[in-house]
């Protein structure tokens, strides 16, 4: 499996590469009033409208002095998900979703043995586990659970 890593503040996170459709430089975001603070708004990617999720807020990293220019990750829609991804049980939404991160890092190829389960003290439901690549650890994010958390929050509100 390959993972796509990204950085928020100084912390490293990862999602499976197969759920990534494309990387972008930041695009102008249209805010939608009344939406969850973790939702930045909407962007237009070559005619497709996508929801932008602010990963900084989702991961509860306190905002630093200067807002980073950031980079965007467009996720695969369920339509574009390749068979391999489906066979791995990866999830995709119908509509395009964009993750707004500080910067995208690298793509790593890894074997299963490097995936560790999420440590017990982590209470974020969308953390799937921890991946070790060489000396570095990456927190694996489950997009499905993340978005589920967003929806739950909305319902609770």
């Amino acid at each position, binding site marked *: 499996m*390959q993972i796509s890593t990204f950085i928020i503040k100084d912390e490293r996170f990862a999602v499976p590469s*197969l759920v990534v459709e494309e990387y972008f*430089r930041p695009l102008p975001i249209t805010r939608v009033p009344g939406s969850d603070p973790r939702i930045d708004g909407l962007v237009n990617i070559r005619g497709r409208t996508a929801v932008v999720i602010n990963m900084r807020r989702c991961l509860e990293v306190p905002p630093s002095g200067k807002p980073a220019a950031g980079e965007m990750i467009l996720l695969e829609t369920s339509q574009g998900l*390749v068979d391999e991804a489906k066979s791995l049980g990866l999830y995709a939404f119908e509509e395009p979703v964009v993750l707004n991160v500080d910067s995208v890092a690298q793509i790593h190829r890894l074997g299963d043995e490097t995936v560790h389960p999420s440590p017990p003290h982590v209470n974020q439901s969308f953390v799937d586990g921890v991946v070790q690549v060489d000396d570095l650890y990456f927190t694996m994010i489950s997009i499905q659970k993340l978005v589920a958390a967003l929806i739950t929050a909305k319902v609770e509100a």
Partner: protein
Amino acid sequence: MSVAQITDHKFSIFNALITNDHREFYEKIINELIGVSPICNQGKCTAAAISETATEQEQITELMERVETFAAELHDGTKNLFDQFYAAKEDFCRSIYCTTAYIKINLIDRTLLERTCDVRWWSMETAFVDCLERINKINRSLDKMLYEMGEYLDASKAAFEVPTLETNWTMRDIGQYVEDVRAFGNRKPELLFNQAVFAQFKAKVELLSEQLGKGKSQEATLNMLQKVLKNIEEVHQHVSTVCNRLEDIGGSYTLYRDLVITIPDGTVIANANPLRRDAVLGRSVKDESWFQRSTQTGNENDYGIEKTNRSVVESGNSLVFSTAIRGTAKGDESIGTLGAFFDLEEEARIILQDYMPCTADGDTRDGWYSFFTDSSGKIVGSSEPDLLDVGSQAHLPRGHRKLVAGGMTSSYASFEGNESAIFSAMSDGYLDFAGLGWSSHLVVPSTDIFASEANCQVNGISPDELMRSRLIPEINKDTYVKVQDDKQSIKLISLNGIVFASKLGKRGVALGPVFEQITETGDFATSKMEELLREMAFGELRLNLQTLETFSKQAIDLIDRNLFERSAAIRWWATDKFLWNALSDPTDENIQTACRRLRDINSSYAMYRNLVLSTRMGRIVAASNPELIPDIKDARVADHMWFTKAMRSKNVGEYAVQDVGTTDLERSARSSLIFSGAVRQSGSRNGEVIGVLGSLFDWVTESGKILKTCLPKDRNGKRIQGCIAFYASSNLEVIETSDPNVVPLGSVPELPAEHRDLSAGQSASGVFRFGDHVYIMGSSRSKGYREYKGLGWSAHILRPLF
């Protein structure tokens, strides 16, 4: 002032100036980028081989093309970046080193201006005028006297030719005595001005007189001899007065090798240097250019400046300031000449060896030269007299020999066997002084200009912070942003490529290495470029720090030199006849005369607010501007530092100074700096102190002017916004500032240790976080100038980074 453009330097890897580091650097980047093309071709082939649909193949081909375009752009970008890098360094060095060359010639001009004032002032000294008038009168009548003496002697000799009973002297004996005396008849200048010769003459006359006295009817001859002796003796008294006065002045103004006074025929009658006196007095300088020039001066404001290295007065390289001394009766008639031998060699050495980088041993770095040339291109002063002979023609490119006043230029040339950059600036005079048409040249090895910043590190600032600072030219900032942008682009392109390939499953495996290679190359090239930009930024920072050091040094040097003049002037004035006269015999008339004298002096020197004369009890009796002193009738200065220090001085060579602060003597002034000198009985050198002369230097105006001169300017000569210059006293209190809002007077800014603990003459520079701002700062501590030891002050120049 304009800085002439040299060539438009286009980057070429073959240019000898490019450092090895950079050549390697450049080649690596280019090689990497050239390697991109085959990779992309391979990528395209692989795409053709593995694609299942036309769209897929198109997508990969498009990706590859984007990469190729991008690599080509990076290739051009790298070349441009190197261009920028070298152009920036060149530009900056031109600006700083031309300025340094200019500072040096400007220092000379400022000094020379003071010297033109000196010679004109001294020529009006009443003691000189009085003595010269008497000497000239006697000199004129002495020819006749000596002739008459000869007649009388002949007569006496004849009388003795008839032996009488009263004497048993033979005629031969008397004849010898007469001849001995007569022999001096045609040695008039020596008789008058050489003490040893006069003493011999006097002895011979006495011997002869003794013998003549034994004869009959010799009164007329004896009277004649006495008359001659008396007249010559009077001249010797005047000569000694003039010599003493010159010695007093010379003692206060050590930048002169000697001061001489001649009578109109060019015979030297007095000098300041006692060691050279016997060799100089009575000699004629009528063939020397400085003397001839002085005879052409039209009035008391006129003066001559001549370079000389062969004079009967001094053999070294001197610049002689001369002017006619004019009589009291007929205002315009010249009764003599004053020549001041300014020690050009020493002065040039002080200035030229300054502002040069040194090795650890304190020697000037190899390949660095600094020298002055006159209008004909001959060297008049040099930092390495062994290599660059004073008096020889300087080997300079044509453009450097044809500068206009205030003009600057620079070019590359071989100098003393080194590939060098030569920076020149021509004098544009200072205030009233038009300058002598001299130029200042600074030679720097080319390798020093383009040296790479091996360790890009200056404490207190990170590369990123520096890149965002105001120091970095917009063009470099833009390039930096562009490179970072490129870096991001190439990363995203290849990541997308990898993601794309991974979705092709097994088919995509072949594409993986292609994108990995592209990522690596792109990363390498952009990182290298970032590195180069950072090196550039640190180079800019380092040169800016150097500039600020230079400016702070200039600021402290200018004030030291200015105050040296003040310390010299006060010592000389304190010996003024009108002043000690008023103190030892305080009649209304004498006091009035002293006041007038102080006013006269003050009116010629704009940098003083007041000159005050105090009795030994601390009461002010005369002032040039009495209206400025509150309650002058009751003004007591006995407890003022300037007064007590001067009262304790031991001889006329000493002066005292009261550091910048407030004083009762002028409550309206923000702060004052007071110089003082003891006034002694009869103006004698070690006489009893009978009062003190104080000069209130216009510190606020003068120091403010200098600070303004030393504020950094941009490449177009415009002052850079937000810069601050200030002086701090020895206890680090701000005593003058160009920006009281940021650095208030009287405050004690918390300076970094290396700026605070400077030793005399030392400079430092670095990053300084002060208030809400980040500055770079250059600091220099006073090293004094000649016998003015300085007051431990320091000058600080700040330039904002943000």
